[in-house]
């Protein structure tokens, strides 16, 4: 592989690491608000890094523009969706998790 291909694979592996952190947070964190935090921040970073790798890997001009457009779209909409869902949960009166009422349980 050429050096730029090593760079693309490195970006993809870094994005996969952050997406793995997001999946671990979805699985392990205690309530809806902390899970929304994991989904909005870590998963967005993983998506942006990996689609940047895809944009570098695609050779033609038009598909690189499409990949950058997809990157920008994910960067804007992914936290917006998590925010909307967390706000809906708060409007329905779901209480945030605190240490007192749930020591170590999910």
């Amino acid at each position, binding site marked *: 592989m050429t050096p730029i291909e090593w760079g*693309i*694979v490195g970006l993809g592996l870094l994005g996969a690491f952050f997406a793995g952190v997001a*999946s671990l947070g979805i699985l392990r964190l205690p309530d809806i608000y902390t899970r929304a935090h994991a*989904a909005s921040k870590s998963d967005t970073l993983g998506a942006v890094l990996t689609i940047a790798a895809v944009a570098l890997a695609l050779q033609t001009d038009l598909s690189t523009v499409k990949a950058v457009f*997809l990157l920008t779209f994910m960067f804007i909409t992914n936290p917006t*969706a998590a925010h909307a*869902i967390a706000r809906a949960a708060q409007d329905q009166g779901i209480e945030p998790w605190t240490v007192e009422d749930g020591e170590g349980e999910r």
Partner: protein
Amino acid sequence: MVEFEQALLAIAAAFVIFAVVALYRVYVGPTIHDRVIAVNVMGTNTVIAIALVSAAFDEPVFLDVALVYALLNFLLSIAFSKFNVEHGGVL
């Protein structure tokens, strides 16, 4: 020595595994909001896997599929949070 396309496909497989891990939260999730957050993460991982497959097989047409999937994923989350609050638990 791995080829470049094989490395991209391996990263796509990792994203699919992370989506399957999030499926546990869709099944268990105490409230319906947990399920929607997990479905949102699964959709994001699916979009990235489609984009990586597009780069690995050098098929730029697949990027259009990824864009439409990302739009539908966002629409699902927004529509869910609107409907569930304003109509009192339709879904």
